[in-house]
């Protein structure tokens, strides 16, 4: 690892046009000679998310990768952070792919021919959805992603029908059914479970997969197929305690597994980070993640020569 300390002195704030909106980003430049690849960090989709992410993990990652010779762009989706616009709701089935494509296009315009995307959960789904429209994309890291679109049905799918029946027959539940509002809540939960069950049987018949295989978003299937056909390197990375990883494992028994098998060594799956990676909710998982990401990205883009910036891969600065 380079001993250089990359900081704000290496960083440039930028505005990126994205349709009617302007996105805000920060480009971190290496202080060793640069590789010809750039890394884009696509953040998660929670209402209070920003491009620096929890405990500044994106800032720390960007500066570590820059110390290894990468240019790194972290940016705010529209409606978030310093970007313009308004985002109604973060939807897994309609992620911010135009924003990521705009960020990638901006990097291509600066001369970066090779791109790697590191997407956190919603950001990973954004990366998959945007991949087809990103020229020069070589690799995507998918951080603790869910492969489902309907999180309510997914949660329902994790519990057996007998768990629902047992819960429904409890005296407290039967008493709650007398209350209209509580009845609505229970009916909604029941609908999610029925939808999940019917989905399982449909998919088992349609795709010749075991009945107990988790539902996977058709869009994810299509996007992953495209990514594999294109030869992209993919990293699926989870924590030991991520429920999304158990769902991912279940989904691998079906079509998802067949697609990933075709990709061979270009797909790497890790679920060995301590605790839950989703949301970066402990310092231990953050440290493990930074180490894992630095190692993976350097393998994708190649090691810099560690010579001072300017000697290889020259940077021509705009006035």
């Amino acid at each position, binding site marked *: 690892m380079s001993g250089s300390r990359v900081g704000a002195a290496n960083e440039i704030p930028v505005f990126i046009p994205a349709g009617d909106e302007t996105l805000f980003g920060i480009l971190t430049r290496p202080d060793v000679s640069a590789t010809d690849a750039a890394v884009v960090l696509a953040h998660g989709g*929670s209402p209070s998310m920003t491009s620096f992410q929890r405990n500044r993990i994106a800032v720390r990652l960007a500066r570590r990768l820059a110390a290894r010779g990468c240019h790194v762009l972290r940016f705010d989706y529209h409606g978030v952070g310093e970007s313009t616009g308004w985002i109604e709701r973060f939807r897994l089935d309609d992620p911010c792919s135009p924003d990521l494509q705009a960020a990638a296009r901006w990097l291509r315009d600066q001369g970066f021919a090779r791109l790697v995307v590191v997407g956190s959960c919603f950001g990973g789904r954004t990366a998959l959805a945007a991949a087809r429209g990103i020229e020069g994309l070589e690799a995507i890291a998918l951080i603790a992603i869910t492969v489902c679109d309907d999180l309510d049905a997914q949660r329902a799918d994790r519990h057996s029908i007998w768990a629902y029946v047992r819960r429904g027959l409890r005296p407290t539940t039967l008493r709650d059914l007398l209350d209209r509002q509580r009845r609505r809540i229970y009916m909604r939960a029941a609908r999610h479970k029925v939808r999940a069950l019917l989905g399982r049987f449909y998919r088992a018949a349609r795709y010749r997969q075991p009945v107990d295989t988790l539902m996977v978003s058709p869009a994810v299937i299509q996007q992953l197929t495209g990514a594999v056909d294109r030869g992209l390197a993919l990293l699926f990375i989870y924590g030991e305690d991520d429920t999304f990883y158990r769902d991912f494992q279940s989904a691998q028994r079906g079509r998802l597994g067949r697609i990933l098998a075709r990709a061979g060594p270009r797909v790497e799956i890790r679920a060995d980070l301590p605790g839950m990676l989703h949301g970066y909710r402990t310092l231990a998982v953050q440290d493990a993640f930074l180490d894992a990401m630095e190692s993976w990205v350097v393998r994708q883009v190649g090691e810099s020569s560690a010579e001072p910036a300017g000697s290889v891969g020259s940077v021509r600065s705009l006035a």
Partner: protein
Amino acid sequence: MSTFTVPSTAIATRKLPGSGIHEQVSFLDVGDRKLFSVRHLPRAEVRGGVVICSPIKAELMKNYRREVTLARELAARGFATQRFQYYGAGHSDGTSAEIDFPGMLADTLGATESFQSDTGVRQLAFVGTRVGALVAAATARRLGPAALVLWEPILRADRYFREVFRARLMRDLTAGVRGESTEGLLARLDRDGAVDILGFSIDEPLYESLRERTLEAELGSDPRAILLVQLSRRRQLRGGYANLQARLTESGFTVECELVEREEAWWFEETDQSPPAATPELIGATADWLDRTLTGSGAA
């Protein structure tokens, strides 16, 4: 050999369509520290200046977009606005272990000095949220009769830390994990120099430099105009805020209180994926008060 044409300019600027306000993003040099800075500048005549002092850790993320929205609203009304991130926070340089109250205060004073020097703004007000309210109060006390807006201010830092540690305990309970008590976390902080609170590091320098501070002490004794904003579903002002208002009024301060109906779980994420209410009521009330106060067009 590849050639990259990355921009080298240290300031990114844009003009927002519609409002015509200008935004400048840069890294400010404050002493030997580089701080992330955003300035929102009116299209025409500058009627005054506002410096926004953010909260920290999870609360910084929670409040972020509200501060952006407020700054844009103020700039649209003719008030130049300075936002920035403390050393060790957000996009700024530094690490979590380097955040302490004296540093936050120095950052704020430095950012304010730079703001006034570059824009020529003389009449200032400060907006501070949570711990940022302590910083805003301490800064204003040093700079003369600046008005203050305090969003959900911390009254006592020792209680604030207990509240923060309880957030971890609540998370541990819901996760079915045997968590540490507040006393256990304090002992760990003393032993290890830092504790992990929901993925944010609370380090000893921050704790030690902040824990004995109170809002009343940071406000000092020179009267000024204050807007105190409570974010809560309660329709009554909390006892602590009401008592503070009474004491300050007795000391010659002019304190108005605004109750905004929104319960904020500062350290937890919302369960739905809708964006936080930009809370138009909060933004509007704050901007209206600052407009009146900075221009002297109403009771202040």
